[in-house]
């Protein structure tokens, strides 16, 4: 009985769940993410389309947009750390907090991971629920199955900051093109010259006339996906708003690996090849 009294009089424990809104309004929000939003005491939102944010307000009026923390010239890392702090303030106050991010909350998003890490370290319940990401939309709209040739995803700036090896026998998909080459973290768009430099880097691995795809998933359901196929050399002159992703299809065929196939032959000789025996008449 004393235990029960103790539980009923103690302050509610705060918690936080990072959920994904998906990309397209009305089409992608999962039932569990919707329920987290509807039942939260406080909802923080970092969405890619203002219309989606307006709809979220109808789902839970206790919404707090994270957009005002951005500021040109201010390091985005500072912004992201502020997001974590403002969310944790509510968790520590005993609130049931939901953090809503467009797409998947764990893909190309620093603060959803960080706030869960911080909350758990302080003893609070914290979870992440996946959402439909731009990557998921890309596979559906472009008819790409990442299992067929493989798929290498990179934040585009890494090709300019680091010595990265591209696998040209599979798809290469480059993200965050709008801020490619920005080392300040204070810009929301780098000039086209930075994307031209990226093109120059890509031409080290691909022919300049290799066809690439500039892709953008729709945020409103009355729109279709933006799919523009151009030669690599013309990538920077494609229609471009800063929200696009660059998809580079394979440039070379997969090359059979004779060494490891021979090792597989050895195993098959012991364990069987798995091929159905031929039926003899």
């Amino acid at each position: 009985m004393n235990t029960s009294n103790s539980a009923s009089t103690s302050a509610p424990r705060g918690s936080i769940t990072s959920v994904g809104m998906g990309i397209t309004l009305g089409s992608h929000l999962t039932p569990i993410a919707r329920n987290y939003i509807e039942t939260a005491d406080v909802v923080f939102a970092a969405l890619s389309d203002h219309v989606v944010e307006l709809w979220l307000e109808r789902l839970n009026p206790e919404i707090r947009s994270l957009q005002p923390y951005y500021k040109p010239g201010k390091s985005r890392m500072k912004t992201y750390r502020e997001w974590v702090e403002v969310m944790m303030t509510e968790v520590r106050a005993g609130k049931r907090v939901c953090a809503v991010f467009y797409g998947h909350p764990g893909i190309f998003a620093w603060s959803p991971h960080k706030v869960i890490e911080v909350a758990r370290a302080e003893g609070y319940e914290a979870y992440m629920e996946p959402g439909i990401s731009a990557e998921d939309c890309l596979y559906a709209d472009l008819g790409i199955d990442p299992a067929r040739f493989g798929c290498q995803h990179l934040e585009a700036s890494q090709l300019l900051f680091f010595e990265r090896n591209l696998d040209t026998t599979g798809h290469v998909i480059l993200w965050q093109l709008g801020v490619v080459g920005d080392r300040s973290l204070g810009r929301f768009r780098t000039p086209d010259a930075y994307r031209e430099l990226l093109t120059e880097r890509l031409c080290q691995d691909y022919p300049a006339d290799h066809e690439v795809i500039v892709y953008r998933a729709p945020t409103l359901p009355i729109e279709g996906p933006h799919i523009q196929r151009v030669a690599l050399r013309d990538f920077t002159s494609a229609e471009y708003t800063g929200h696009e992703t660059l998809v580079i299809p394979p440039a070379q065929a997969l090359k059979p690996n004779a060494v490891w196939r021979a090792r597989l032959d050895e195993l098959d000789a012991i364990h069987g090849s798995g091929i159905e025996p031929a039926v003899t008449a």
Partner: protein
Amino acid sequence: MRDTVELLEAIGRDATLRRASPEVLARALKATDASPGLLELVANGDGTALTNELGLVDRYVEHMSQTGAHEESLLN
């Protein structure tokens, strides 16, 4: 006039409208008394009127810093 935000969300979960042609979508929107801004966006791809109707502001979409940029040590 139908609430634009609610209407857009409803279209997003309507299998008959989500992939409808602009012509079919325009007819359906007129039948539901959609706002002039929404009709203009569907008919001509011009979102100016809808932006004014709803007071829309562009959203920043970067939620991740570039690995290798300054403050990289703060990523972890």
